[in-house]
């Protein structure tokens, strides 16, 4: 076949343009590493959890538990408790081996330094349980807890907290701190940072749940298989309880984690996709430049008889090779990334490798490279053979008019799709919004060469003024090949547009929350738990008795079912809640009675409720009560959509826990806050917040979210920066003789470096301006779409955006370092000598 010599041409070209192709491969490597890292990391986590649940459920043949009447939708949420009497009934069933009632709840460990071990609500579980002697915990020192005041800890938490067997230990439960003695430590294997505090069974029931109740009952089998035993056990169970096989229990646990990890994986892959999309621009640009530089050589090949398809194939062959090498290195880098992710999330151990990341790495790497190189390859084939004989050859360029039409069309269509997703009530808005954004980016990238002329003129002006001739030359160089400048800038545009959108959204969130706190927070303080436990009602009285406090009221929240749908409601000290949140009534009043109900305006409208309407409510304990709407209030972010009376909540909740205590004071000054903190000094898992604190908390949360997304998007900016380096390096090579001439007639190395830096900065800032413009538009559109969800203030963080512009300029400077250095080192003689 004639393809053998063409393959040789491909190989020779690869080795002749090593540096350029290495830079292209970097774009592939980074994108593929992101994909592979995500896949390997989530595979590893999945495997770990599978192992964990297999370990936990190893000896469980059947599990007995209460039925979830109101499924909160969160598979990890607690079930109603199971009466202890069930255990005696189960014990009589033939085939049941060692049935054990377990108790699970919140218990946090306070270290010797007075600080809580673990991270509270956002960290790994702080688990309290009863010591059962089986399951995953294996005693390594001391003995089992036998009486109130004795606990066993997992050995890692014990050593982190600085405790040894025999030490007095403080444990925090919902009811408050417990002074206990550490009687033993246990090995629980790799539980990813979980802290485990085990009591004897009666104490666990009293402190973690309710005396006389279990979370569930687990049992082994003496012979019958799991399903047969389950059926036998089910016969003796009272209503409201169920029996499931151990296999089902393990699957439930696994699938709940798997679905979370699946979501997490998709989430990360979206960002990986963005990086790859940016990488595609770089690959496209590099291949375009390589083809343009090789025009004469390609023409020669055509002149001596190579077919068009052979020329195309030779270029595509290069792309395949680059894609292959990039994918291989990307896969390796991805494994490193997964290792890094694992260590930052506090885990250890071997990574799990399946075929999936390997296959996807190669598919993604090679397909993206080939698709991106396809258009340059086609252009290469269009080089007329006669170009070999001509002196100044240029590739045929398609007209800008088609490009403009296509670009405008794509931009508009993309904007339309985004509008549809944001405002059109579609079932899965993420799809049209994502596709729309994609189309807008492509459209603007197509339009960018047209925009670049005036934009570069303006952006280059300060350089032309400040640096004079080198600045003017830089500006001219950036204008020289608008397509190239545009493609390079567009790559940077994408990352910056998304980062800007995230920042606009974050800033709007901050402003919205602040305005809500200002408008709707009428109390002086709120007291909230920092752990997963909630607070006991006793604490409310203590807070009320604190000096300077005029009133304190509890607020609970619960789940119930209304006309078949799960709803979340608030309940508690209604007057304190309503005044503390400055609730405004549209109709009716806040006087509830035992079976009253308050709803907000939107809920009333949606369910056509008004004062006096009757609403049947199904509670988690399986009982239904008909409540009467006694008031409709204006939308309030702190109250949510429904309020029930405290007595209704308490009557149907086995294990009530206070979510927040709303406090009013004579004077909200430092003295009162200090007094409150004194009252709560024994509770390091509780914090006092005033208005400023609430705002600061919200700000911190939003900042965390913005930072997280920004970090994920930084990868695409890095890839774009590689693109700037690539473009400049190739341009410098292309302009070797021109640079030689400039050096010969007296431009200094410094002026030359400045010229290249200025060109780089102009391109980078052009991309940033495009990106920030699009990002602000995206952010504003998102905010507008979410204004009903509480995002009612649009705020553009001008300072941050200016910083990004400066960062883009710095990226420009950094990207120019190497190309400028190379240009400065160029041999003047070589540069000016004719071939």
């Amino acid at each position, binding site marked *: 076949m004639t393809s053998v010599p063409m393959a040789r041409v491909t190989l020779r070209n690869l080795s002749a343009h090593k540096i350029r192709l290495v830079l292209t491969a970097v774009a592939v490597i980074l994108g593929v590493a992101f994909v592979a890292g995500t896949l390997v990391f989530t595979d590893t986590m999945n495997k770990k959890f599978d192992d964990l649940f297999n370990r936990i459920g190893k000896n469980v043949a059947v599990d007995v538990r209460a039925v979830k009447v109101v499924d909160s939708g969160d598979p990890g949420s607690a079930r109603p408790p199971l009466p202890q009497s069930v255990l005696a009934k189960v014990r009589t069933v033939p085939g049941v081996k060692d049935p054990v009632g377990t108790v699970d709840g919140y218990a946090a460990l306070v270290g010797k330094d007075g600080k809580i071990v673990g991270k509270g609500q956002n960290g790994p579980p702080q688990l309290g349980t009863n010591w059962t002697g089986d399951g995953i915990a294996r005693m390594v020192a001391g003995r089992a807890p036998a009486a109130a005041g004795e606990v066993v800890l997992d050995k890692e938490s014990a050593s982190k907290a600085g405790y040894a067997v025999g030490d007095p230990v403080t444990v925090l439960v919902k009811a408050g701190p417990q002074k206990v003695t550490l009687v033993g430590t246990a090995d629980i294997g790799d539980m990813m940072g979980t802290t485990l505090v085990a009591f004897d069974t009666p104490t666990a029931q009293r402190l973690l749940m309710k005396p006389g109740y279990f979370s569930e009952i687990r049992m082994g089998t003496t012979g019958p298989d799991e399903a047969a035993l389950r059926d036998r056990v089910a016969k003796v169970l009272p209503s409201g309880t169920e029996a499931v096989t151990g296999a089902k229990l393990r699957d439930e646990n696994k699938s709940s984690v798997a679905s979370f990890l699946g979501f997490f994986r998709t989430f990360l892959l979206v960002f990986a996709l963005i990086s790859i999309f940016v990488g595609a621009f770089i690959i496209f640009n590099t291949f375009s430049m390589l083809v343009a530089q090789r025009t004469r050589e390609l023409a020669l090949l055509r002149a001596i008889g190579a077919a068009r398809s052979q020329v195309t194939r030779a270029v595509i062959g290069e792309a395949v090779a680059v894609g292959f090498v990039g994918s291989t290195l990307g896969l390796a880098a991805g494994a490193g990334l997964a290792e890094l992710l694992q260590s930052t999330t506090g885990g250890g151990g071997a990574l799990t490798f399946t075929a999936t990341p390997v296959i996807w790495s190669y598919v993604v790497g090679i397909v993206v490279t080939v698709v991106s190189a396809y258009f340059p390859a086609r252009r290469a084939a269009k080089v007329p053979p006669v170009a070999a004989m001509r002196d100044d050859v240029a590739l045929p360029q398609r007209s800008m008019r088609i490009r403009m039409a296509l670009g405008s069309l794509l931009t508009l269509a993309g904007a339309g799709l985004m509008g549809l997703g944001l405002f059109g009530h579609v079932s899965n808005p993420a799809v049209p919004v994502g596709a729309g954004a994609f189309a807008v980016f492509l459209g603007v990238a197509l339009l960018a060469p047209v925009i670049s002329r005036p934009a570069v003129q303006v952006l280059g002006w300060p350089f032309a003024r400040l640096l004079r001739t080198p600045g003017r*030359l830089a500006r001219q160089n950036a204008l020289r090949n608008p397509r190239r400048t545009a493609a390079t800038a567009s790559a940077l545009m994408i990352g910056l547009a998304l980062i800007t959108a995230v920042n606009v959204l974050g800033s709007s969130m901050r402003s919205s929350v602040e305005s809500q706190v200002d408008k709707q927070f009428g109390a002086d303080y709120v007291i909230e738990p920092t752990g997963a436990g909630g607070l006991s009602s006793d604490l409310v009285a203590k807070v009320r008795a604190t000096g300077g406090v005029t009133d304190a009221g509890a607020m609970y929240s619960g789940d119930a079912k209304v006309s078949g749908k799960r709803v979340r409601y608030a309940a508690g000290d209604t007057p304190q809640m309503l005044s503390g949140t400055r609730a405004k009534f549209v109709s009716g009043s806040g006087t509830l009675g035992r079976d009253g109900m308050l709803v907000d305006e939107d809920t009333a409208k949606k369910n056509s409720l008004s004062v006096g309407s009757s609403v049947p409510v199904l509670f988690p304990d399986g009982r239904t009560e008909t409540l009467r709407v006694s008031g409709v209030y204006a939308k309030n972010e702190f109250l949510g959509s429904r309020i029930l009376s405290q007595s209704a909540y308490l009557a149907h909740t086995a294990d009530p826990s206070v979510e927040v205590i709303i406090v009013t004071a004579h004077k909200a000054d430092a003295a009162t806050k200090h007094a409150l903190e004194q009252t709560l000094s024994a509770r390091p898992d509780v914090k006092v917040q005033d208005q400023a604190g609430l705002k600061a908390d919200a700000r911190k949360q939003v900042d965390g979210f913005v930072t997280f997304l920004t970090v994920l998007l930084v990868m695409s900016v890095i890839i774009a920066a590689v693109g700037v380096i690539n473009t400049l390096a190739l341009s410098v090579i292309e302009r070797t003789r021109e640079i030689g001439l400039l050096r010969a007639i*007296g*431009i*200094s190395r410094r002026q030359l470096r400045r010229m290249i830096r200025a060109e780089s900065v102009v391109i980078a800032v052009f991309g940033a301006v495009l990106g920030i413009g699009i990002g602000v538009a995206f952010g504003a559109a998102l905010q507008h779409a979410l204004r009903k969800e509480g995002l009612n203030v649009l705020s553009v963080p001008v300072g941050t955006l200016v910083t990004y512009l400066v960062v883009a300029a710095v990226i420009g400077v950094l990207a120019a370092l190497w190309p400028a250095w190379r240009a400065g080192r160029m041999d003047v003689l070589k540069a000016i000598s004719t071939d």
Partner: protein
Amino acid sequence: MTDSARSTSDAATAPGAGDFAARGHRISKVYGSGDARVIALDGVTVGIPRGRFTAVMGPSGSGKSTLMHCMAGLDAVSEGEVFIGDTELTSLRDKQLTRLRRDKIGFIFQAFNLVPTLTALENITLPMDIAGRRPDPAWLDRVIDTVGLRPRLKHRPSELSGGQQQRVACARALASRPEIIFADEPTGNLDSRSGAEVLSFLRDSVREMGQTIVMVTHDPSAAAYADQVLFLTDGQIVDTMQQPTAERVLERMKGFELPGVGAR
């Protein structure tokens, strides 16, 4: 002929020779080492008289381009000293050399003389723009008129013919009134008519404006425009000819009996 060659060499050796725009004293240039060692210049001593048009001729590989590159501060010599005016080049750092090239030397290359993104006028004033100096408007006008480019000043190089491009290059070299202009085969890429135009222009600028020009060429008819010709063979100046004609130069070149004369 031999006498005048000696006299040029002797004059260059004498210190403070004020009537030379550029001088080289026993300059050698060696490339590579061991078996690959090539001696391009072998102890050349040469003086370029001020206000005259000097051509450097020699067969391919004779070292004429190397001589020009070394004299112009584009390449470093292995041994010896090079002076532009009173400035000794071999002790200069890159920065000082760059400044010297910018302020004291004009260049005309065989091809690729112009920056493609700049107009003809911008190209002409480029060395002064780089230096941050304002060109003398009267002088600039005179140069532009002499090369006959006034209607083409706003054009980019790609819109000019080869001859016009070389004339822009000549104007650029002249515009900053350098001490000396080095021209490296300035007509090598031109047809004979455009070539003749450029050469007469160079000769006129020497006669009328008092410019000093050194031109490297292998074309006897180009050398005939010069006031004197230096012949270079095997890295050494072997002869000098005053008031050359094409026939005499051609005759002299034949004497070298080297293949490939006139080829590049």
